[in-house]
């Protein structure tokens, strides 16, 4: 089926995996079974880890495509909270769209959207306490929005302007919001996995019942830190949640490059003796339910859970790439698990707690809010004009206190400005 495949001949025994479809192919994902019977039963959160090994191979779902909720994992969430989740997802998407466009206009150096994955971050955050430390990647902006962070602060970070809490030091989207339980995002993939385990170990050591939750893309599970995290979390029964967001793509590489012959990413945890869940990441209720289960397990002394969030990266990797160069242009549309916003919307409508008009109104509200917020953020500077960042701040926060050689370099720098 994959035409491009054959043109790149492989005449040796060395096997190199390839995605089923490349540009020019007509993607057909009917081979990915969308479970209709809604997946494994919900065990006691303090069960033995191996009792979840089937969950690593199945798929936890709550929301049917027709908007019904079914199965063992249905969480008990009020319509009010569900509408809150819907709004957080829509705000996230609206902000992403705006920022992407502003990057295209040169207002910032770079941007990364989370389109299609909003339920993962928002649903996850809804099931945690705000004091639980989240160690995100660059695609969990939904956590911040769900937790009520200031969107203007976020935008100023992306604009690297005088309102940037990070003083322009980091590239766009690498936020740090301690006050929202949102760990400083590293540009180095994977590294935070094991740090989150250390954070969780100190929670346990301090007899606190706060937990840590860390994210990685499926691609970055290939880093050593993923192994360290699973191993240390298992050995010390660290109260944490290890989340793999399997959005099918790592820049241009399909998930099979990281997965190899492995059946799922959740199943990586089985051999380590961790609890393992695999969840429909486009189903906010399922994400909520799985997170809630894992959080209860961690808080109760049951140790860590590995959750694979099965979803799809609808946009390019970042503003730097064009996904049509490596996958069929319409692949996002034919991906069989739907859109997380649409699915939650349909559910709310089906239970009589939402309608098209309210939805449209909320969409407009989000857009306007984002537009206004962006305006006030850009007023504080942007890369295309003057960032208004004080250049001397680059010498600060290298150490707690400056050191003599840095003072000297600061002086040399001031000479340059003369």
């Amino acid at each position: 089926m994959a035409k491009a495949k054959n043109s790149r001949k492989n005449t040796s025994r060395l096997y190199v995996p390839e995605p089923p479809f490349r540009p020019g192919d007509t993607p057909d994902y009917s081979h990915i079974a969308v479970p209709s019977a809604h997946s494994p039963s919900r065990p006691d959160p303090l069960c033995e880890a191996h009792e979840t090994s089937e969950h690593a191979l199945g798929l936890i779902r709550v929301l049917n495509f027709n908007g019904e909720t079914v199965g063992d994992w249905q969480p008990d969430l009020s319509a009010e909270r569900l509408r809150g989740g819907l709004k957080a997802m829509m705000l996230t998407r609206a902000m992403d769209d705006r920022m992407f466009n502003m990057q295209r206009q040169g207002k910032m150096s770079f941007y990364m959207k989370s389109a299609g994955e909003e339920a993962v971050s928002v649903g996850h955050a809804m099931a945690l306490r705000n004091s639980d430390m989240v160690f995100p990647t660059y695609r969990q902006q939904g956590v911040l929005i769900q937790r009520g962070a200031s969107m203007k602060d976020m935008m100023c970070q992306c604009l690297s302007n005088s309102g940037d809490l990070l003083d322009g030091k980091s590239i766009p989207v690498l936020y740090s919001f301690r006050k929202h339980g949102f760990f400083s995002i590293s540009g180095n993939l994977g590294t935070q996995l094991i740090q989150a385990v250390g954070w969780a170990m100190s929670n346990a050591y301090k007899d606190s019942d706060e937990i840590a939750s860390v994210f990685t893309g499926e691609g970055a599970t290939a880093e050593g830190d993923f192994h360290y995290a699973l191993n240390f979390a298992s050995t010390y029964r660290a109260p944490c949640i290890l989340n793999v967001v399997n959005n099918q793509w790592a820049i241009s590489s399909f998930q099979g490059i990281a997965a190899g012959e492995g059946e799922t990413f959740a199943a990586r945890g089985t051999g380590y003796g961790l609890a393992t869940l695999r969840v429909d990441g486009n189903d906010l209720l399922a994400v909520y339910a799985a997170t809630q289960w894992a959080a209860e397990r961690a808080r109760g002394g049951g140790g860590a859970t590995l959750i694979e969030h099965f979803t799809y990266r609808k946009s390019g990797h970042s503003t730097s790439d064009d996904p049509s160069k490596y996958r069929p242009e319409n692949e996002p549309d034919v991906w069989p698990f739907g859109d997380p916003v649409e699915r939650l919307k349909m559910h709310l409508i089906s239970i009589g707690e939402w309608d098209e008009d309210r939805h449209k109104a909320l969409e407009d509200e989000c857009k306007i809010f984002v537009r206004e917020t962006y305006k006030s953020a850009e007023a504080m500077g942007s890369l295309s004009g003057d960032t208004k960042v004080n250049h001397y701040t680059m010498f600060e926060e290298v150490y707690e206190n400056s050191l003599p050689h840095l003072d000297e370099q600061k002086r040399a720098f001031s000479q340059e400005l003369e």
Partner: protein
Amino acid sequence: MAKAASKHDNMKTQNLNMIEAIRDALDVKMSQDKDVLVFGEDVGYFGGVFRCTAGLQEKHGLHRCFDTPISEGGIIGIAVGMAANGLRPVAEIQFADYIYPAYDQIASEAARLRYRSNGDFTAPLTIRTPVGGGIYGGTTHSQSPEALFTHIAGLKTIIPSNPYDAKGMLISAIEDNDPVLFLEPKRLYNGPFFGDPHKPAVSWKGQELGDVPTGHYTVPLGKARHMRKGDDVTILAYGTMVWIAEAVADEMGISADILDLRSLLPLDIDAIEASVKKTGRCVILHEATRTSGFGAELSAQVQERCFYHLEAPIQRVTGWDTPYPHAQEWAYFPGPKRVGIAIRKVLEAA
């Protein structure tokens, strides 16, 4: 502008940017030698985030140019095993900032395999990776970690500054029987850079060093390029900084002896010594963090060999001892102002 191109006078050339020159080197070697394999994150179908491997998979086959898991340690690990088993792997690390997970495989393994086995096994692999700032990459897409590798016995570390050298040096690296780290100054991929980010970008078109011979040729490792002859001051530079050196020398109208080192280890110390003994003054440029940067080694060697010829303290012009900031990129970058101040200091010293 002394280019060793004279010997290629009868060769056909084409104008290439540095990305194309690198790709051409890979293509030439893959065509000549089926033991050459190319791999790394996104290098296969997509052709690399900087496009250096574009088209190679289609031309040479899926098994000769392929994507790897996001695992720099794993990438270099398989490269060591392949090289020991007779292949000539060329591994790409997407950004030099991400090379640290592979540090152990490079320093403990690739560099020491020959020594610890007394030649029983060797690791003739090449590692390509983009270095340096200038693209608003911030702390994790801008680093220049060369000094961390020049400290490692058993490894060679080289860095071209133009398409001609890039192709010839990469071919040399692949043919070398020792592990070679090939650093690509990403700011130079599309053209030389003279230090002012606000001026329109210059392309390699029309640059002599963008005229790249077709087919096979080599630029030997361990030889500096005598970029410009002069009498007043020696400027030692490599990568992006060689173009800043030239721009500043032009602007100041001084007679500078500029060496594009190209190869840091092995180092062309003879050329350096000869130049400094002639000029008596020396300025060293690099983009990396100052403390324990490669400039320290250059400074130490110059004063060890040229002490009695030096008329002024050797000056180092470098990045600051901070991570590479994002918004303050150009305040961090050792641009023409910083270089000019240092040259003036060295020239004015009694």
